[in-house]
């Protein structure tokens, strides 16, 4: 599908618009993180502004294990087990943070979780144990040169390695899937499983209590729910999946840094994803992040083969570009000045327009338009062939 488009007459346009497979892998694991964020924030109404801590925990755990830096777990520990360990550490962390934070609500909750997260962030940045330069973050070293395997641990036939450079290639009928593509499907598998697990929770009695808490916590207490425990439980579940997402990220990228895992702006990205996708819709977050990434990539892929800038350059032709406007500014120069490296400007504009004109988010709006049952089935359907 992807390839056919690239070879078609509109290939320049396609190239400009379509995210690369590698971006899509990022959409998957970060989308999972955004989903886990939406799980707690969108359903209980408690904005977990420090969620990046769990993502970072998952990522660092995977790398530390691979580098043989976690006691008892050698570099050879199966990736799936590392994910689980990262998830469990995050659960413990979530419970510790939650014990204090859930005494608060509203913005205060958001801010105290942010506060905790920043404390962890500063700590991890200064912790020499994790990497020689903790500020730059750890990368998977020679002790684990092969790719991380997703699948049934121990059974090689049922496992495939992920990573652009380290992933397995798989021959399928006429074409072969590259390492990146294999990663896409394997990580997609894990993400899908996690999504269904969270979906399950939301539709369970427990999930209904989460919604009741969002709707009116005082009344939820008054009808007999110990909301504190429910919130803690939801937070722990959410933290677990956030850590799995972080683990997938580290497994694919083979590196992490405090800035791209523990930093509060990482939570910010998840927040954006879930609002764009539709707050409190779970799967929406994934689409939200896909949208966010596509826009960013479209605007910033300057000169890397796709994106708006090179497309404009090619479209307008050299003569138009060299034409002068005022003084010695050429059209090309102006385009460069306004576009090159200023993707954020346009991303920002897109956000503003989004909030004003698509208030319920992508999935929220879709559900509104299409009504209940179909919309329920839709995410799963779209997911299957979202590439």
């Amino acid at each position, binding site marked *: 599908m992807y390839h056919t488009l690239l070879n078609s007459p509109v290939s320049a346009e396609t190239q400009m618009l379509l995210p690369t497979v590698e971006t899509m892998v990022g959409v998957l694991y970060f989308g999972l993180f955004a989903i886990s964020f939406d799980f707690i924030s969108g359903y209980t109404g408690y904005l977990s502004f420090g969620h990046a801590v769990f993502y970072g925990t998952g990522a660092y755990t995977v790398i530390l294990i691979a580098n043989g830096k976690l006691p008892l777990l050698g570099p050879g520990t199966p990736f799936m087990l590392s994910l689980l360990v990262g998830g469990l550490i995050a659960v413990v962390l979530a419970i510790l943070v939650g014990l204090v934070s859930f005494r608060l609500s509203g913005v205060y909750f958001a801010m105290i979780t942010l506060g905790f997260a920043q404390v962890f962030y500063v700590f991890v940045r200064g912790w020499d144990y994790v990497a020689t330069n903790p500020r730059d973050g750890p990368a998977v070293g020679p002790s684990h040169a092969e790719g991380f395997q997703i699948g049934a641990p121990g059974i090689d036939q049922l496992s495939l390695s992920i990573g652009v450079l380290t992933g397995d290639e798989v021959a399928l009928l006429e074409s072969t899937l590259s390492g990146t593509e294999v990663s896409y499907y394997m990580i997609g598998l894990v993400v899908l499983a996690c999504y269904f697990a969270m979906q*399950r*929770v939301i*539709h*369970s*009695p*427990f*999930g*209904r*209590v989460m*919604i*009741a808490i969002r*709707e*009116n916590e*005082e*009344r*939820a*207490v*008054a*009808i*007999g*729910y*110990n*909301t504190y425990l*429910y919130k803690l*439980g939801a937070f722990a*579940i959410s933290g677990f999946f956030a850590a799995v997402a972080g683990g997938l990220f580290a497994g694919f990228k083979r590196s992490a840094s405090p800035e791209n895992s523990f930093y509060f702006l990482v939570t910010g990205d998840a927040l954006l994803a879930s609002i764009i996708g539709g707050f409190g819709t779970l799967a929406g977050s994934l689409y939200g992040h896909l949208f966010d990434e596509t826009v960013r990539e479209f605007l910033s892929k300057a000169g890397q083969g796709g994106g708006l800038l090179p497309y404009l350059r090619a479209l307008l032709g050299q003569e138009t570009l060299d034409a002068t406007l005022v003084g010695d500014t050429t059209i090309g120069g102006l385009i460069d000045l306004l576009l090159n490296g200023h993707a954020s400007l346009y991303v920002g504009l897109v956000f503003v327009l989004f909030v004003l004109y698509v208030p319920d988010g992508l999935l929220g709006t879709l559900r509104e338009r299409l009504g209940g049952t179909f919309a329920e089935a839709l995410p799963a359907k779209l997911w299957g062939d979202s590439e």
Partner: protein
Amino acid sequence: MLRTQGLTREFGGLTAVDSVDFELDAELCSLIGPNGAGKTTFFNLLTGTLSPTEGTVELRRDGAWQDITDASPHETASKGIHRSYQVTNVFPNSTVLENVRVAEQAHSDDATTFWRNVDHYDEFTERAHEILDRVGLSHRAEDLASTLSHGAKRKLEVAIALAGDPAILLLDEPNAGVSSESVDEIRALIEAVAEDYPVLLVEHNMDIVMGVSDRVVVLHQGAVIADGPPAEVRANPDVQSAYLGGYEPGSLDDDTTAAGSDRDSEEGTA
């Protein structure tokens, strides 16, 4: 079933509930008193929403008294003390059915189940429908609670309190804002549930209070000033002056300024 001893609650210098000794049996007991007498505060103390400055609250379960003074609201609720709120307090963006269903679910062991779909728990939904039938809201089951009219929300209040097989029902002005024709429905409803559960009712509509109650307790400035069968309480001169001496149709035609200033002094620090 439920008793308090010396129950007191102060807000700053104000004693909202003043050493109340009270016991509720399997009966329909009404709690009346002027505005600000401390009725809602008393409810809040019984349910653990507020903790008392002094005194105890005890609940009888399996024949033994159990101290629940320091229990939190969700604990009292799960011990079966259910309440409705004076100011509507529901889950606004959930459906009417879900409002009741989630309350019903609170009293099962399945509430913490996170791996099974709610649709597997038909019994909650069925019970919720029954309760909605009972309060006359079944035709609005699928509407969002926020779109109900005021009167309908009052009914939903009661429905939520009824969910989950209460041991004791505390109803805080279930009739406020309910139109006169529905008042009769609600009155019938109260009488019916009182057959099944002990009920403590706060109500300003004297027709209902006098009509349905087995017993009436009058609170004034936080303290109990009368306690007895309706007829006796109605006749009590203290109650008359503190509370009942109210609006009579036609009274507006006479100039009643004098009566007004009279009451001022009694209102005092309610």
